[in-house]
Structure formats: structure tokens, C-alpha cells
């Protein structure tokens, strides 16, 4: 049984909505609501959802950039809030993040070699000639020419910037790589190259992967398991082949149909606001299967056999 690196337990994050002259909190944005997810070592999990579903917030909660409103994130079983200093440093070495906007995720005043070397410097893993060597190795791993070492981010293309970000993330030999929409702002062919690179890395290094994206196709290429998020909650989680073959949750079905851009599909309505979500099941306003029970009760995420988890009253 592989060890769990990161785990979210009843993780909740709500942001106050401030309005009016005195900036009073008039409501709460339910960004992430009661999420339970575990990432075991060496496995890849995809997190799929549309904008505003909370996936980026979840990523930030998982690495401790945000404090949860409720629930906790556990690193090797230890809650983040109670980590000792050495354990926190270990977290920073073992868990790394790749961002959506590659150019924005690097310091514009630093050169490529400095950017890639930074984690090694911070964690005192290498110095001098050995540092240079490691930087070269990392650049090679992400297939960047060593000639780019002295360049600044503004002289790099989007794809090259993202490779720099990946090289930097690999510097400490992490166990888990969290990718937050890493190809969303890249061209199709460049994105395909990055996806291929990530696949190779997970296979050769036994790297665990949490791949967050709205692009179901990219997620299905990289990940063994997929979790679907809607309005801050996980509504379904299953192995990739099972999910693609037979989606159980109506939202998953909707996503799959939309991903293939089937223009003959019936209209599906608007996403409700996550400040004032509907009562009961939050998807019921757009669900073709909605019933009275869906209005009343919020469905829990339950195991339905074969490792599949679904949060729906209509799919026993």
C-alpha cells in the first residue's frame, strides 16, 4: 500500500464577500467545500472542473499557501498546521507546484540558471561546481538547451518558460508534483510537448502527480484516477478508464459531452453562484435527473464499488 503523501480531510475554504462602503462581509464564497482527497506516492490523480470550481484554491490549500476555514491537510499523516520546522522544510522539498502562467511564475529579474538553482540554494543541497552540474542536468531533463542558461524570462517562449518552471520544481527531487493548469495558456503543440514531458517524468521518476485542469482530454492522458469538482465539491472520483467509459455523476456526463463539443446536445443552463448555492445538491439546477430528494439533501461522496466515489442521490 503506497504511502499517502498529501491528504485533504474535510477541507473547506470560504472567502468573505465584502461589499459596501464599510466593506462588510455580506456573504461567503464557498470555494472549497468538505473535500476529501488523497494522493499516494507514485500515483497520478487528475482534478477536473470548470472555472470557479475551486481547483486552484484546493491546490493552494494543499501546499499550505492558504489556511483552510475548516478541515485540514495532512502531509505524511501530519496536519500542516502542526508541522515542525524540519517537517515544513521537508514538505517544501517533497511537494512542488507548477503554475498556469509560466511567465508569471518566474522572477522576471532572474536568469534561467538562477531560477532553476534557487531550490537547491534554499535547501542547501548543492554549491559551486556541483550546483552548476545539477542545473545542467535539470535543464537537460526538461530538454532545454544549455545555451538558455543566461537568458531572462522575457526572452523565452511560453513553452520554454514552463520547462524552466518544471526544471525548478524537479530540483529537490520531489515526491509529488502539483500542476495547476500548466498548459492552459500554451499553444496546442507546445502543450502536447509539455504533457509528454510530464508523462515521461512520472514514469521514469515514480513521481506522484496531481494534475489540475479543465481539459478532460489532457487529464485522461496523464492520470490514472480522475476526480471531478463542481462548485468546490468533489462529485465523482474513479479510475480514468472507468470514468471515461461510464460516467456516473450527471455533471461528469455533461463535462464529457461538452468536451467533445457535441453541438446537438440540449442546453444545460448556467452555473449557480458559489456565494448562494442551491439547497441540497448543488448541481440540481442543471441536472436532468433532479428530484425532490435532491432539493432537500446534500449527497455525500460515497464509495460505490470498484474504487468509484460518487456524490449523487440518483446513482446508488
Amino acid at each position, binding site marked *: 500500500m503506497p504511502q499517502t503523501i498529501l491528504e485533504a480531510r474535510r477541507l473547506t475554504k470560504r472567502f468573505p464577500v465584502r461589499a459596501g462602503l464599510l466593506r462588510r462581509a455580506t456573504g461567503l464564497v464557498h470555494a472549497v467545500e468538505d473535500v476529501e482527497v488523497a494522493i499516494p506516492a507514485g500515483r497520478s490523480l487528475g482534478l477536473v472542473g*470548470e*472555472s470557479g470550481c475551486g481547483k486552484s484554491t484546493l491546490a493552494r490549500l494543499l501546499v499550505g499557501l492558504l489556511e483552510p476555514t475548516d478541515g485540514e491537510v495532512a502531509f505524511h499523516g501530519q496536519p500542516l498546521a502542526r508541522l515542525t520546522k524540519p517537517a515544513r522544510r521537508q514538505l517544501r522539498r517533497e511537494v512542488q507546484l507548477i503554475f498556469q502562467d509560466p511567465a508569471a511564475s518566474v522572477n522576471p529579474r532572474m536568469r534561467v540558471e538562477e531560477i532553476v538553482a534557487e531550490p537547491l540554494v534554499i535547501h542547501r543541497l548543492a554549491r559551486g561546481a556541483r550546483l552548476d552540474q545539477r542545473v545542467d542536468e535539470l535543464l537537460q531533463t526538461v530538454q532545454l538547451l544549455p545555451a538558455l542558461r543566461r537568458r531572462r524570462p522575457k526572452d523565452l*517562449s*511560453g*513553452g*520554454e518558460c514552463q520547462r524552466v518552471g518544471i526544471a525548478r520544481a524537479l530540483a529537490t527531487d520531489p515526491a509529488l508534483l502539483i500542476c495547476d493548469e500548466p498548459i492552459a495558456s500554451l*499553444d*496546442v*503543440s*507546445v*502543450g*502536447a*510537448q509539455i*504533457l*509528454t514531458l510530464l508523462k515521461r517524468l512520472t514514469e521514469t521518476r515514480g513521481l506522484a502527480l496531481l494534475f489540475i485542469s*479543465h481539459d*478532460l*482530454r*489532457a487529464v*485522461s*492522458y496523464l492520470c490514472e484516477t480522475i476526480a471531478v469538482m463542481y462548485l468546490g465539491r468533489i462529485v465523482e472520483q474513479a479510475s*480514468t*478508464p472507468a470514468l*471515461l467509459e461510464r460516467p456516473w455523476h450527471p455533471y461528469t456526463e*455533461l*463535462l464529457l*459531452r*461538452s*468536451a*467533445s*463539443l*457535441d*453541438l446537438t*446536445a440540449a*442546453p*444545460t443552463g*448556467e*452555473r449557480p453562484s458559489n456565494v448562494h448555492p442551491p439547497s441540497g445538491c448543488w448541481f440540481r439546477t442543471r441536472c436532468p435527473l433532479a428530484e425532490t430528494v435532491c432539493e432537500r439533501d446534500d449527497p455525500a461522496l460515497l464509495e460505490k464499488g470498484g474504487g468509484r466515489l460518487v456524490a449523487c442521490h440518483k446513482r446508488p
Partner: protein
Amino acid sequence: MALLSIEQLTVVYRQDGVVVPAVDRVDLAVEPGEVLAVVGESGCGKTSLALAITNLIRPPGEIPTGRVLFQGQDLLALSPGALRDVRGRQIGYVFQDPASSLNPVLSIGEQLRETIRLHTTLKDARADDYAVDLLSQVGIPSPRERLGAYPHELSGGMRQRVMIAMAIAPKPSLVIADEPTTALDVTVQVQILQLLQRLQQTLQLSLVLISHDLTVVERLCHRVAVMYAGRIVEAGPVTEVFQRPAHPYTMGLLGCRPVRLQGVVRIGTIEGSAPDLTRLPSGCAFHPRCPVAEPRCADALPRLDQVGPTRVARCLKPFSKPGA
């Protein structure tokens, strides 16, 4: 006669003494009622092409050569006043990011009324009625109540619908849409594409759709033109081009979409990266990345040759499969 006929259109940008050829002698035609896709990745020139059609290129960009014949008239030779009449009234634009295309301090009703006032003869109450009619045509619920709404109160999909309403208000014969659904969620994308399809059919619109998303093109368009490094490298009916691509770049692009075969998801790639427009490779600009390239591909720029009854491709070895 073609509704829009682009002949040898060239767009260059001058910066710090360097000339960047964004669009290189492009020929394209759009028939009435046709949906043409212009496909390519960043830097291929598709947005410059879209802007150049109605002479919207500003310094440091310029249009040194080419003609854009719209209903027989060369738009690039028109006076600014006459061109303004065409632009907006007979040719509508829909841009990528509705958040930045809509004025945040004006309600959508005010912005719609402005367009209606500018490009039609309707005024006051009649203009309002027409605005409400437009909003319901684009699928906005409770349109009369929504006239007073501000852009930030609407979702991305709603905003894009408003943009489309503004574009079709003067009943144009051609709409140019530059990545209209890229910034939207996939479920909303479907809705907007359905809307565009419906409008195109009911209003007999011609549509030029600029996109990098081949699936969108496949669903919505009749013909497609593929651009690379400012040039058209392939053009033809969508189904034919997608089923049997002639140019290796088109083949590569189609292969970049993850595809599920026998339960396994695979993805193809194109080697290398987009060329620097100021230092284009000699001959065919794609040859350094082409899996079937030969030495002669670097000699001279291939012509756009006929490779089918209604298909053209700029390649010395069309339809060659790598490894074949």
C-alpha cells in the same frame, strides 16, 4: 461571387529597425453563407489577418500590399469614413475576451443602444425594442430586465452573448470572430457555438472563425485554412482536411489532441518550436520540424498547389505520412 476575397494580403510590423512579416501574401475567399476557419498557433498571423481585413492595423504594423475585396470593393482602398461604414455595419467583429471588449462603466443596454444608433436608423423606443429582441436572439433570459445590467454582473458566457448581439445588430453579411470561445468554460463553449451555428443559419451570415482549437473548427466550420509563420499552408473543406490532411503541419496539429484508442490515451507532438518570424528558415518555414522533410524543402518556398478539387497545400510532399 465570393463575399470576401483576400488577395496577396501582407502585414508587417516594424520595430527597432527589424521588419516582422506577420502575414505573407495570403489569398483567401469566403462565400456567402459559408463558415471559414483560420487555424494556427500563436505567432502564425491569424489575428493580424483578422484585423487587416478591415484595415484595423495600426503602427508599428502596416499593410504594404494586398487587396481585400468585400462585395467587389477593395476595403483597403476606401476612405476612413467609407470604411467605418462597412466596418461594424456590414462586417461585424467578435473578440476573444468579452471582459475587455465591453465597457465596464456602461450597462449592456447602453452599449447595445449605441451600436444600434450608430449603424441602424432605429431610435429611442424602437431601438430599445430591437435591443431586447437581439438579447433574446442570443439566448439571454429576461432580456428587458437585463438591459440595465452591467458587464461585471454577467457571467463570461453571458458577456460573450452580448458581444455577439452587438456584432449582429446591424445585420452584417460577414462576422469575424477571433477565438470567441477560448476564454470560456467548456460547457459554456458548447452553448456559444450552438448559438453561432444557429445565428449563422437563420441570418445567412458568413463567418470567419479564428481559432487554435481544431475541435471547434470541426464542429462549426465548412472550410478551413491552416496558417504557419504568416502563410497559408493548407486550405480546403473541413471534413476532407481533417480526415486526410495534406500538409505535415496540419497532420501534426491534428495529432496533438489526446485520443483514446483501445482504452489507452495517446498524444502526438510536433518537434521543435514555432519559428522566429524575423529569422524564418529558408524555403518551407516548417521544414526544420517536419518529420518527412527533404533537403529540397529548404531550397525555395513551395507554392500553394492544388491537391484536390477544392483543396490546396503548400508542400512538396503532400499527404506523406511519417515513417512511410
